[in-house]
């Protein structure tokens, strides 16, 4: 008995020896800075006017209530996240279901799908700003001019700019949903479908009663991962519009960045970052709860 006990103890010690370095690094590089972020959010830290800096209590958070730019960025974060995630899953799933049926050439599409994923978001943003969306000479306007349609200032008009940055994000990350769902779909056992086919179940019925329940875990996981990416989206928007025109594409992440590093108001920026972080944690908690409840 003592042998088994000391074995267990040994295993525990070994586990700790392997774990502690990584955990120590994580605590030092993520948790400690977060505590400092919280502390900063209670201060006025204005690098433009350093003499005004000092403890401010909850002033930064109180200020948000009457800050229209904050509410605007919060609404934009919601619109941006919801629309990009829904679009990615819908387009990615539809495309995966269709591509699954083509006998040859799936490989080519899989290679093409890798391209947007591996590109740096900042390069994607710059590419779209110049080659794709530039008025008159960008790809989109060239096509629309060829059809006799008018050209648009895709990134200069506030409403079009929001649509454009949503399109950019959707372009880059739909391949992720597509590849994951295609891989999941191709692991489903074909005999299930055969049985359903003999039952004369229609294609839609087969999809909703057979396919969808089987791939639900994968869809939920895609939604979770894509939501996290959308909430912390930055570089592509920064490169394409910089959050503008005005604050038309300024999601909370960009507002916190601009406040901190363009307006040099790091205290208020820290408070905004705290809000963004709380939203992220609450949403991810709810999604993980949902995932477990559904199983």
């Amino acid at each position, binding site marked *: 008995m003592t042998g088994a006990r000391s074995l267990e103890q040994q295993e525990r010690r*070994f586990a700790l020896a392997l774990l502690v370095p990584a955990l120590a690094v994580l605590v030092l590089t*993520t*948790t400690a800075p977060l505590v400092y972020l919280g502390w900063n959010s209670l201060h006025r830290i204005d690098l433009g006017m350093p003499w005004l800096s000092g403890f401010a209590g909850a002033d930064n958070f109180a200020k948000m209530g009457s800050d229209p730019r904050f509410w605007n960025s919060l609404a934009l974060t919601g619109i941006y996240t919801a629309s990009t995630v829904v679009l990615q899953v819908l387009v990615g799933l539809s495309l995966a279901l269709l591509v699954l049926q083509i006998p040859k050439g799936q490989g080519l599409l899989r290679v093409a799908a890798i391209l947007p994923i591996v590109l740096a978001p900042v390069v994607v943003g710059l590419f779209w700003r110049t080659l794709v969306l530039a008025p008159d000479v960008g790809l989109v306007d060239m096509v629309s001019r060829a059809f006799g349609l008018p050209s648009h200032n895709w990134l200069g008009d506030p409403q079009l700019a929001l649509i454009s940055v949503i399109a950019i994000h959707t372009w880059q990350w739909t391949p992720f949903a597509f590849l994951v769902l295609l891989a999941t779909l191709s692991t489903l056992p074909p005999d299930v479908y055969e049985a359903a086919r003999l039952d004369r179940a229609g294609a839609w019925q087969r999809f909703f009663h057979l396919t969808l329940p089987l791939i639900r875990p994968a869809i939920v*996981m895609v939604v979770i991962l894509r939501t996290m990416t959308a909430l912390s989206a930055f570089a592509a928007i920064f490169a394409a519009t910089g959050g503008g025109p005005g604050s038309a594409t300024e999601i909370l992440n960009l507002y916190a960045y601009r406040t901190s590093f363009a307006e040099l108001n790091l205290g208020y920026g820290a408070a905004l970052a705290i809000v963004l972080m709380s939203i992220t944690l609450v949403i991810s908690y709810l999604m993980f709860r949902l995932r477990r409840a559904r199983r």
Partner: protein
Amino acid sequence: MRTAAPPPLPRVIALYAIAGIGLAVWAFPVFWGLLTSFKTERDVLAYPPVFVFTPTLANYREVIFGASSIVPNLVSSLVVSTLATALTMLFAVPAAYAMARLRFPAKRGTGFYVLATQMLPPVGLIIPYYLVLQKIGGLDTYSGLTVIYLTFSLPFAIWLMVSYFEDVPLEMEEAALLDRAGRLRALWHVILPQVKGGIAVTTIFVFLNAWNEFMFAVVLGGNRVRPVTVAMFNFISVEQTQWARLAAGAMLAMAPVILIGLFAQRHIVKGLTVGAVKGGGRR
């Protein structure tokens, strides 16, 4: 009895048309960027667009040897990404093994902690890092950037490696039930060779993410340490955009990740699905 009857021809054509549109939408902007990088600035702005033109290497010459050379930036990116990847793997692999296979107190809590650190929005980290590094003179240094890169790569690498360790058949562990030196030796000689593929995939992902990082680089970098993602803005100013040079610079900067993507294509898809599909079945 009709089992898998071949779909009718019009349907096949429609399917290929849709797949073709998907292909074009994803690949064409990149292909267009490649074409543009060989054009003169005048050809770039031609309408109707020119597909046949006299290719020029002037843009590449400029972004490699010229005044706006991005070679120093490629070096910066390479140094930071390599350092961050090496450190990440050094810490992540042992931790992931323990989390996947060993019994220890507060195992669940540890898992959640690692997951939670992965959820942190980068803008929340950049502010304290900026303030601290500014105080200790760590702005515009390789070590400053490398440390903050660990914040997103370490949790990610741990979770990905956990899923690979979980795939190793349990019988392999029998060998590990020895004394402590035996455990370490078993991990090194028996278990690690089993997850070679997983280590390779994780390394590729971590490197790719570090290479592509932008927000940390633009704030914590400077004139000495300026990764290539930041240098892309050299070609864009309020007065004018140097389209062809930007395209050439972008192609050069993205060549490593595109090549990795194409060669490691299968592994990347597997890596994505390991994270997603297997993650769906965990706990």
